């Protein structure tokens, strides 16, 4: 993976950068530049890529964040924002000539306002901590990425994180009310609040999922939901992924929006069952877990409907959770699918494409062919309700060429996702991992329009360069108009 060439001048003045940062963030531990300590920050959840940052700064106040960003803007130093470092796409991969700006010290829940169903938190608070803080009062925060124990809400905003409940409750972007945000010029703005919608351009909407390329979030107001009265799950085994896919289609076509609807293929079922003995049917080619939540009377009713649909589509095993413990057991295997695969293979590479759901059998079939061609096994877990696919490519990094093969296989899967009408990433982000695949999905003109946003927020490209875009155009050049005055008078255009 090619990263922007480190700037020699910046590398040379490293000590002066450290000195300046110390002045801005004088607290003990606020600036880290010892190489051993920097090693902690050398990668995020995408561990295949590593790079020691120039220096790490851990500010504690919005004012300090503003000072650091202004300094970067004015003196030409690059800056990589970092939450908990759980990104699976390398969004927080450091730059040799860049400051890593960690938000870990922004770890307080500032306000819980249940009457207005929201909480105001600092960006370093973990996703799960928000739900935990309000669970006793019967509320929760809906998006639940599988890293929720560790990932921070600020990182969730940066990546527009999802989870298993997206089909019914949306992604991060659908569950935010307000942000405090610092621009690269060091200006602090507040977007939204406890009210809904935005009066002008939806800046909060475009900042969400911008992978640290537009600025730094220093406060987040999230929407809280009342905990559903009940939740129950069905565990359904099928002889083919087609039958399982048809069942998903029939459930949604029947007007039912489950809280979670997950599919696993045979290799994933076997790995998960061996790992945590969830009672999954080992004779099934595909397994569906369907969770319904809400008022008891409704869940009861819908469970029966889903069961009838599954039987009609030829489910050869079907269990309904009788109590909370059994529901948790159904999920245990799915939630442990990644570590379970990790046990059967020295390494695995987790992909994250989304496809139109009806393409599933075709995509799984093509993936089996590719698997044979590359000589690498693949296990699939799938957020079936919303079409988000997580193929896990099994490989051994110690075997020469395996990592490269796995990456090539992964890229081919993502190209296939785009080819069938889907996208490169459903929830993990582009980062460095899928950066060079962006042209598979977008034409240069599409990317140029996306980059207009970058130019409005960070015209000098100080924020997280080398991520998301294969190539960042000079903003002045990108801004130039190409007017063809000679093309008039457009004879084909109907006029009245």
């Amino acid at each position, binding site marked *: 993976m090619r990263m922007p060439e480190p700037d020699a001048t910046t590398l040379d003045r490293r000590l002066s950068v450290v000195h300046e940062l110390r002045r801005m963030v004088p607290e003990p531990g606020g600036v880290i530049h010892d190489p051993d300590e920097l090693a902690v920050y050398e990668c995020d959840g995408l561990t295949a890529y590593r790079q020691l940052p120039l220096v790490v700064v851990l500010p504690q106040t919005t004012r300090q964040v503003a000072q650091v960003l202004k300094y970067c803007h004015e003196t030409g130093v690059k800056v990589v924002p970092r939450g908990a470092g759980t990104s699976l796409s390398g969004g927080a991969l450091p730059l040799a000539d860049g400051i890593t700006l960690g938000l870990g010290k922004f770890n307080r829940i500032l306000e819980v306002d249940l*009457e*207005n*169903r929201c909480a105001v938190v600092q960006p370093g608070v973990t996703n799960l901590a928000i739900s935990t803080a309000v669970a006793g009062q019967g*509320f929760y925060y809906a998006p639940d990425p599988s890293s929720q124990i560790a990932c921070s809400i600020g990182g969730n905003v940066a*990546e*527009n994180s*999802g989870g298993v409940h997206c089909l019914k409750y949306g*992604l991060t*972007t659908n569950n935010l009310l307000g942000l405090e945000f610092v*621009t690269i010029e060091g200006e602090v*703005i507040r977007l939204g609040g*406890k*009210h*809904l*919608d*935005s*009066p*002008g*351009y*939806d*800046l909060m*909407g475009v900042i*969400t*999922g*911008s992978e640290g390329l537009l600025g730094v979030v220093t406060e987040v107001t999230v929407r809280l939901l*009342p*905990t559903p009265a009940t939740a129950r799950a069905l565990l359904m085994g099928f002889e083919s992924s087609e039958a399982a896919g048809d069942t998903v289609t029939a459930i*949604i076509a029947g007007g039912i*929006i489950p809280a979670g609807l997950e599919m696993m293929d045979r290799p994933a079922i076997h790995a998960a069952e061996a790992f945590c003995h969830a009672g999954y049917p080992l004779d099934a080619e595909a397994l569906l877990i369907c969770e319904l939540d*809400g*008022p008891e*009377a*409704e869940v009861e009713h819908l469970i029966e409907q889903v069961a009838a649909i599954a039987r009609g589509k030829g489910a050869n095993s079907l269990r309904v959770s009788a109590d909370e413990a059994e529901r948790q057991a159904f999920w245990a295997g799915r939630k442990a699918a990644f570590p379970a695969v990790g046990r059967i293979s020295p390494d695995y590479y987790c992909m994250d494409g*989304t496809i*139109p*759901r*009806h393409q599933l059998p075709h995509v799984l079939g093509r993936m089996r062919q590719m698997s044979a061609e590359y000589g690498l096994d693949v296990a699939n877990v799938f957020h079936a309700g*919303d079409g*988000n696919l997580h193929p896990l490519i099994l490989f051994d990094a110690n075997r020469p060429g395996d990592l490269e093969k796995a990456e090539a296989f992964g890229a081919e899967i993502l190209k296939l996702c785009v080819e069938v*009408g889907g*996208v490169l*990433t*459903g929830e993990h982000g*582009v980062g460095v991992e899928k950066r060079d695949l*962006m042209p598979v*999905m*977008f034409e240069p*003109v599409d990317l140029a*329009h*996306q980059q207009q946003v*970058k*130019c*409005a927020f960070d015209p000098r490209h100080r924020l997280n360069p080398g991520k998301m875009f294969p190539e960042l155009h000079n903003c002045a050049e990108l801004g130039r108009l190409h*007017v063809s005055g000679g*093309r008039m008078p*457009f004879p*084909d*255009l*109907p006029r*009245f």
Partner: protein
Amino acid sequence: MSETLKPATADQVVDAVAQALAAGTPLEVVGQGSKRAIGRPMEAESRLDLSKLTGISLYEPAELVLRAAAGTPRAEIEAALAAERQRLAFDPPDLGALLGGPAGRGTLAGMVVPNLGGPRRLSAGAPRDHLLGYKAVSGRAEAYKAGGRVMKNVTGFDLCKLMAGSWGTLGVLTELTLKVQPLPETSRTVLLLGLTDGLGVRALSRAMGGPHEVAAAAHLPAGVAALSKVAAVARAGAEGRAVTALKVEGPGPSVAHRAGGLKTDLADLSADAEDIHDAQGATLWQEIRDATLLAEPAEGLIWRLSVTPMRGPEIAHAIVQRLPGTRGLYDWAGGLVWLAVPGDTAQGDGGAGPIRRALAEHGGGHALLLRGPEALRARVAVFQPEDRVTAALSRRLRLGFDPRLILNRGRLIAEQPEE
């Protein structure tokens, strides 16, 4: 207005924008024109009419996705969805009657680009939450695409969010892909009678925080309730009693159960509760969605305020103190305040000052002058003014997508192109 351009293809939209760009003459972008009277009066020399750009190109009910050309009539979209027992989740208002025109008009893009949601916006999200992808022609006269057709997509910047709420100033949409929603089997609306505004909104807040999955939550002061076409609501209003309304949707047994649960849970606030069924409920929620209860007198100014839900009543009361004769209602569990301000204030600022001062003093939010005479809309900020830094970012975005301010110039704010 020198001419109206009526492109029938996206390529012709490119030509139209290129022509305007070359000549430096701004365009007014319209669909069926049902929301033309919203916003600042524009400086436009030609009109770009998208009403010929129609047709649903993809509708897969089982995948909850619909794609259609920007000018596809609202009625066509709604009919196609209804045939598959689906709908647009964000409940777009039909403001035709409120703005003095016929009801039932409008286009797909016209429902999305202003990012205005109806009563169900509270539980289901706004238009911006349902726009999965689009094709557009920017003010650079370049056709491009953004987003996709799948529910989960974080590939690149989320430009869909910018387009919803842009009022046509960032690009001319030519095609939109939306997430749609199954129609619930049935619905029921619980009415609590005789609560003050404060207690009414408190009841709504408590219901929203409870287990009954409330889809919509509104409070109508007695004078407004009296104008309803729904007998039970009008009767209560005529008796001087306010009506607090909570809608639940879903399978029949569930709906009955939850309506009962709501009444039980809120019994300490209101002993006087009743239910109305699907059809009557539809009438009531449409009256709230389209603000038709505030439509008369026609010279009244209509403001739409998004506020911290529990502070809705204190904001409304602060405004009424300063602008006597103002009437209103609360939607979104108190978070959306609709106000009809007496028309004579249009000689002054139309209430803009007092309304925005009340917002600033009571927890913030934003106010849109949705209906008012053209002269007033030219004089006061129709949309909530932004702070200096936000305004500068918005301006840079605007210039990035439309460097010569060709599209709907002046609709959101007074603006001039860079020299």
